[in-house]
């Protein structure tokens, strides 16, 4: 496949790895933001291939990790209504809420359907005029334009039996929040390349300036990731900070202006609660009043919608806190009443600290014991791209191999 296969070339990858190796003289902690990038890292074993001094922290970049449990609960409730056809991307169907997940709702008789594109929902709506199609509009800025288009089209075409349950999150405020914690350990970022195709990367420049970190806009194929790491390490080694674009084949500084205009038209920015993290100000989208008619939460009100203002982040307070502690500041308190966070997740869970790079999964008391992929306690183990799940699976291999004395020559492996 053109523009895909070339970026998986092992010879080019090998060259980049050597370059990274030559550049790296010290330890660095780098975070990749997007779940898709975490997926590539795990799939291609990039974390194994990078020099050991480079420590990776998997960012809060996947729908599982960030969708507030309240939204899942609302989705499950709506999906269980007999006059609703609930449409969703596949990723969301197994995310656990407090009353189960969407697949359980389906088992219970709900009409839950997977769609590839939000625009498909409009067809479902016109084919089923007696029922309401509710679409679970989740994602980062990458997915927001498609979701916005569905709403905009519905309004234009007068499709009234269509509504969206919005759960959109924005990347730069999350990075701001992460970086504002004086105890964070992340020294460089690989920014989410596809988010930047829409939004551009001018939003990251003030962040890079304020916190003096390198931020490299990075793609998703192995060569893209390696180039991202190479540029980030180069900047770190040379003491430079700022934003660089390593995904120039699709990212322009201004992004996609028409898509941004569409977002402006349909959505407005709001405070938002991230699962396992807490409320981050101005980090989510909601529908503008002109599109309120398509808001599923208004069409299907359930228990009172939690006012985000009731669980304010203590970010403002913590930044004045000069007492440097090794414990996480309350803003990133893993979970508990104080942050107003999810009852569904356990108080043993330290996913907040994992996401900041303060702790690694093996340092968690629950890791592998009470918390496993089959019985996850928190967001970072629930998702296969979460740091804890990734460590769990990789670690099992190391432990299992160490237990055997056999050498392992296998034809076709290039290294290790």
């Amino acid at each position, binding site marked *: 496949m053109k523009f895909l296969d070339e970026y998986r070339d092992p010879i080019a990858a090998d060259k980049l790895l050597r370059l990274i190796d030559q550049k790296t003289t010290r330890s660095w902690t780098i975070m990749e933001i997007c779940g898709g990038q975490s997926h590539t890292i795990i799939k291609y074993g990039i974390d194994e291939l990078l020099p050991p001094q480079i420590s990776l922290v998997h960012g809060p970049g996947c729908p599982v990790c960030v969708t507030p449990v309240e939204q899942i609960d609302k989705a499950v409730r709506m999906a269980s209504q007999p006059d609703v056809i609930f449409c969703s991307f596949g990723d969301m169907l197994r995310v656990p809420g407090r009353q189960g997940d969407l697949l359980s709702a389906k088992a219970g008789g709900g009409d839950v*359907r997977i769609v590839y594109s939000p625009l498909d929902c409009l067809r479902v709506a016109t084919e089923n005029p007696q029922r309401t199609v509710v679409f679970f509009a989740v994602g980062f800025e990458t997915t927001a334009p498609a979701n916005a288009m569905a709403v905009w089209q519905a309004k234009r075409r007068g499709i009234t039996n269509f509504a969206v349950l919005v759960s959109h999150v924005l990347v730069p405020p999350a990075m701001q929040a992460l970086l504002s914690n004086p105890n964070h350990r992340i020294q460089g970022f690989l920014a989410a390349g596809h988010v930047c195709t829409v939004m551009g990367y001018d939003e990251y420049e003030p962040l890079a300036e304020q916190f003096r970190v390198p931020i490299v806009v990075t793609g998703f194929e192995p060569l893209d990731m390696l180039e991202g790491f190479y540029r980030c390490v180069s900047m770190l080694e040379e003491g430079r900070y700022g934003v660089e674009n390593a995904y120039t084949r699709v990212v322009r500084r201004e992004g996609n202006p028409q898509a941004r205009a569409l977002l402006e038209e349909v959505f407005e920015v709001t405070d938002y609660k991230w699962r396992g993290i807490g409320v981050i100000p101005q980090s989510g989208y909601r529908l503008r009043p002109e599109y309120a008619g398509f808001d599923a939460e208004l069409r299907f009100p359930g228990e009172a919608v939690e006012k985000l203002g009731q669980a304010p982040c203590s970010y403002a307070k913590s930044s004045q806190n000069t007492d440097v502690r090794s414990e996480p500041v309350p803003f990133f308190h893993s979970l508990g009443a104080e942050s107003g966070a999810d009852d569904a997740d356990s108080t043993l869970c330290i996913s907040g600290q994992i996401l900041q790079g303060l702790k690694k999964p093996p340092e968690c008391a629950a890791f592998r014991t009470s918390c496993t992929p089959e019985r996850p306690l928190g967001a970072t183990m629930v998702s296969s791209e979460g740091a804890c799940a990734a460590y769990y699976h990789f670690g099992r*291999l190391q432990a299992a191999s160490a237990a055997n004395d056999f050498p392992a020559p296998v034809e076709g492996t290039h290294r290790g």
Partner: protein
Amino acid sequence: MADLESRNCPIPRVQYEHVLMGHGSGGKMTADLIRQTFLPLLADETLARLEDQATLTLSPSGDSPVRLALTTDSFVVQPIFFPGGDIGQLAVHGTVNDLAVGGARPLYLAAAFILEEGLPLADLQKIVASMRLACEEAGVRLVTADTKVVDRGKGDKIFITTTGVGIVPSNCRLSIQAARPGDRILVSGTVGDHGIAIMSVREGIEFETILESDTAPLVDLAQSLLAACPDIRCMRDPTRGGLSSALHELADGSRVGIRLVEAAIPLRDEVRAACEMLGLDPLYVASEGKLIAVVPSEDAERALAALRAHPLGRNAAIIGDVVAEHPGMVTICPPLGGERIVTMLAGEQLPRIC
């Protein structure tokens, strides 16, 4: 209504009160359902071996023992007519193949039909005609059958269960418990064709492609392989759950590790493209006309040649090894190097956006 189930994002809970679609995926949930519900309650040692078919020795007095292979399978595919085949063909091939990979020569089939009220008779006729052709092609006779009808809404157009019997040669010792470290793993051709062909016509994710299901009878191919490699350890057909499920069963059955080489796994361009677009991993996508074979390493090249000489095995390849490390686990070596675990699918794979 079309339906698939979650991949590994995220992993489901262990305790279930109801049957979910994931229990039918061929992944971990299916394995758990079998181990926790069916095996303990049915308590049969042959059943407990979980081979694709049961090999039974009948010893009529005075005559030499006969080894009978018996297997059964149900077919619930939607849509019932798909690119490259239909549910009828699948019902014949699926059962015939389960016998064939056990080394048996399939002889007879029984079929049970559950028809939903309202199914057009023309569709039924097409499906049954299809089965007749498939039987002829596979060299089996469909000798007994049953039909039931259920109310509209209580069955998805048509469900077919086929049961097959065959004879296993006395010297044939194929088993999922037979793999040994040092053995090599072969696949008879491109994987994932069937699963992606089905997806291409599934509502919500449909797309245009020339790709067709690879559904085919494997009797002849399996027999050629056996003739060339009498010491073959085991054969499986990677249907639901794909290569991953079949290899996990093998790793588990033989208590060995399996190490695959990603670049060696044959894939059609269309399957690759569809998997990229939908975010699927071809390791978990079903094939219906392919087999996996585990052979002693000294026989690997001969086995490969035998497969490639056959029309159904032209794209055969050696895709990995049986190893002593990490028993019960399947790993894969990605093209850039290193090794990672192939996680056991929990439910079935779902398209993803992340």
